């Protein structure tokens, strides 16, 4: 079973992603900040990371830079409420960019594409 790490500071969204992606057949772990994500990545194996950008403490852009340093091969999906980070070249290392909306369809499609690549 493919393992996904969700980095998201919103409690309700963590719960939603956990349930929805588990239903899609993934093994999902959620974490609320970048520090926690890096800790999990050092200790365990994940097949894909979904990360928010604006989070307390270290933000998602910084996290992506660190992940690339740790594990170059791991696909990263940015899942953010901000459209504008798309123009930030620091986010170009990610494999997909999804703007949060009231539907999870796009996020699910992007994850599936990357998992079957």
């Amino acid at each position: 079973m493919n393992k996904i790490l969700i980095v998201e500071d919103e409690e309700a969204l963590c719960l939603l992603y956990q349930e929805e992606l588990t239903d899609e057949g993934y093994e999902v772990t959620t974490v609320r900040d970048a520090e926690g994500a890096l800790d999990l990545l050092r200790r365990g194996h994940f097949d894909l990371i979904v990360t928010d950008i604006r989070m307390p403490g270290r933000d998602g852009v910084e996290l992506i830079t660190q992940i690339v340093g740790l594990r170059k091969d791991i696909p990263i999906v940015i899942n953010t409420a901000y459209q504008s980070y798309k123009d930030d070249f620091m986010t170009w290392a990610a494999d997909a960019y999804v703007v949060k909306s009231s539907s999870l369809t796009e996020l699910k499609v992007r994850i599936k594409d990357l998992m079957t690549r």
Partner: protein
Amino acid sequence: MIEPHAFLAPDFQSREPKELTLLSIVSQSFFQPFSVEDNLLVILTALTSGSGVGFNRAMLFLTEGDRLRGEMWLGPRSAEEARTIWEILSTPGIGYIEIIEHNRSLLSLEADSLSRRIRPLEFSLAGDNLTVPVTALAKNEILLVRDASREPLIDPRFLQAIDVEEFLCVPLLSQNEVLGEIVLDNAFSRQPIQPKDIKLAGLCGLLAANYISTATLHRKMVEMERLAALGEMSMFIAHQIRNPLAAIGGFTDQLLAAPADESKRRRNLEIIRREIQRLENIIFELTHFLKVDPKTPAPFDPGPAIRAVLMAVELKAASEGRELVSRIEDRLPPILGDPTYFGEALRNLIVNAFEASPPGGRVEVMAERKDAAWVVVSVRDEGRGIPPEVRSKLFTPFVSTKDRGMGLGLLYAKRVMDACGGTIELESEAGRGSTFRLFFRAGEEGRTDP
């Protein structure tokens, strides 16, 4: 010896050369708090005043895209009115301010004004067969037209409107940008246009072009700043709204997609309700904190106002496990402000302090007289402190150190303090908390800087 000298030539009757007087009056008016229209009127006044250049009438056309449109036409409407105006304006002691006032009233007679007659006039700046008045712009030359009715290269609608045989077209250009044109005539005196008049009209044209170009750039700059602020605001609001919407949408879809047990159904509905409440709070903060309209500052007793706020937040302090301590000096003088806005600003600072403090942390509210002129109300927390790079942006909208903050509470407090003639200060040290100090003017006594 040090001698003061005025910048401004006081009137058109100056003994200085006319070029210098015109230059001085027109340039100085650009530094007055006049509107763009008023400043253009000053230029037309300089061209038509008997003691200025002395034309009878001046038309102003401005460009809009690839069109030249009639904007303003200054001058008397008839020979009789011209005589009356000349009599008034030749009265000794009349300065250019009075002449401009008079001309402004002339322009405001909208029903039968000359301006009303030229506003429908519009000419294309593009094409091969250009006619006067556009020709002057195309050639970038001042054109003197005589025997106009016999000249085929004049637009017939323009000729019908101006209805004179001799007139002068002065193009307004700046760095090859076509801005407009001034057309001058002596419809009532019938005086031929002299070379010295053409020279002075050219000088006024250069000044007008320079002014229009600067005013246009300034307007564009203000608009760009406004749009940038609007863009930043809309981006921030979009972010604030998308998170709750994603939760509402996702949990609603779960309910729609499959039958859920009662506990999951209830949990989803509670999350949806909470996120809707969050959206409502965003709307409240946007509409409430961005609107500060306090009454004229009036003296009020700060003690009871502070105690009322403390009572209102005591319960919150207890429920969130924060210690609230207050020390309000006895016999504080009245302070100047609006008690309602004061209370709201102080409440914001205290709630911020609760949120910044760790569990069990202490928040201190103090009020004391600083000196005869100032009273200080301060709120201190035991939080992480505010980093230097955030401090400089703290009172701008949508900057927040909180995970879910809109960044409007401190802006609100600052606007309240500005409105009552007070100030707000921050002292913060990493790991040792922050103190916000509100400086209020005491009563109606004299003031010193805090």
